[in-house]
């Protein structure tokens, strides 16, 4: 377990020293959300209707953008081989990597989303739904995405491929999260949707590290 905590510390330190890694997806998040009023309609009435969906699509794309780098450096500099040789549990290792990824992508996205909500005229009632849905939903995105990142770590120009693999798997999260925000906005109950997101999070926490671990081993055998 010590190796896992050491890796988590190392990755957080690396992110702190190289802020572009986690700041760029955040700026991307902001810019994508700003495109919609420009391209579609800046009318607040219209915006307040689509705000939740737009913010969620932007968050999803920003997560995808930051996933590509998750295992790349570790494959290139040989850290991955050291992990595999160390005999430590790959399950714990990939879980740790996904959690670090959430800390530097999902968490800042969650914290920044209310600002975007203000810009997109999100209804007042929907702010908590937005924050909660992002807090519960983005870890699922990180966990599922880590599987894709592990699969494509050794592939040249794997970024686009990663999006192809992972986007269909993100659809359920998007559906439930956007609908929670939308229903909160029109004054209906939204705890059911958050419950579903929580169920998906539990499932992803248990199962995706297995797939990630299997996919990581694959990078060694080449």
């Amino acid at each position, binding site marked *: 377990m010590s190796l896992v905590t050491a890796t988590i510390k190392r990755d957080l330190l690396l992110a702190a020293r190289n802020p572009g890694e986690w700041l760029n997806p955040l700026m991307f998040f902001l810019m994508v959300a700003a495109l919609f009023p420009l391209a579609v309609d800046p009318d607040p009435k219209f915006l307040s209707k689509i705000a939740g969906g737009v913010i969620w699509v932007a968050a999803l794309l920003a997560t995808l953008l930051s996933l590509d780098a998750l295992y790349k450096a570790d494959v290139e500099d040989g850290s991955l081989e050291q992990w595999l040789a160390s005999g430590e549990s790959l399950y714990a290792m990939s879980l740790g990597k996904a959690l670090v990824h959430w800390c530097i992508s999902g968490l800042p996205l969650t914290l920044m989303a209310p600002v975007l909500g203000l810009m997109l005229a999100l209804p007042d009632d929907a702010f908590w739904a937005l924050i909660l849905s992002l807090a519960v939903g983005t870890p699922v995105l990180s966990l599922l995405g880590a599987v894709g990142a592990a*699969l494509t770590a050794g*592939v040249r120009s794997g970024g686009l*491929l990663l999006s192809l693999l992972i986007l*269909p798997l993100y*659809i359920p999260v998007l*559906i439930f999260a956007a609908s929670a925000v939308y229903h909160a906005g029109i004054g209906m109950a939204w705890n059911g949707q958050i419950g*579903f997101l929580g169920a998906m999070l539990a499932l992803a926490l248990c199962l995706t590290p297995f797939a990630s671990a*299997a996919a990581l081993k694959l990078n060694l*055998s*080449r």
Partner: protein
Amino acid sequence: MSDALCFGGGVKTQLIAVVVMWQWLKQLYHRLGSPKWFYEITTGWIPWLAVLSVIGTVVGLVLGLLYAPADYLQGNSFRIIYIHVPAAILAQSAFMMMAVAGAVYLIWRMKMAAWVAKVIAPIGASFCLIALLTGAIWGKPTWGTWWVWDARLTSMLLLLFLYFGVMALQQAMESEDSSYRAGAILSLVGLVNIPIIKYSVEWWNTLHQPATLKLTEKPSMHPDMLIPLLIMIVTTYVFFALLVILRTRNEILWHERKRSWVKQILES
């Protein structure tokens, strides 16, 4: 006491039957692992499967297109069901077969399973595409539009995306073994996700869209319509088996091309 004995004897025979079946399955499994055995045994199957799929298609389509009564609501346009539904069913079960074959390769490293999984991906994707296209053609006269965000349409579209993902990943990998393994992992992840996607899409749809464009609820189908449909479904499975066997044989010939038995076949 005697009852208990009888019961015990029943369990015993059942146990023996299970053990015998298990042994038989194990034997079959080990044989299936041999490319040569598979190649030789399927040589005799191909003409049968081909004839069966031609006869089934002709009978099913003639019965369906000429003899089945027209639908009271949709008229003759409903007849595309005889292609649409079998293709849709097959697209879904092909994904399951691909994932199972992939799992067999991941766990037991059986080469045959990897080849079968690789071969199924494009075939399954083609059936998925056929289902979507015929669905669109059917939708035009029935719903008045080529595409609606109906739950079933959307989940078929996502299934097609999953197939594309598996195929793209397999092509991107440099070594053959890692392409098989990566495809297997992704199709297993996809298999877990398919029910989640299906139910979330249905749930989303029922919330967002009132049932304006629903297919007329099928009251139990008239046998004259149902029998051709069943024939077409079975035939599509036979045709699928034929395609998979033919393409797997190609893979076998290519991968075993340096073996003496393949050289003999190729020379004769």
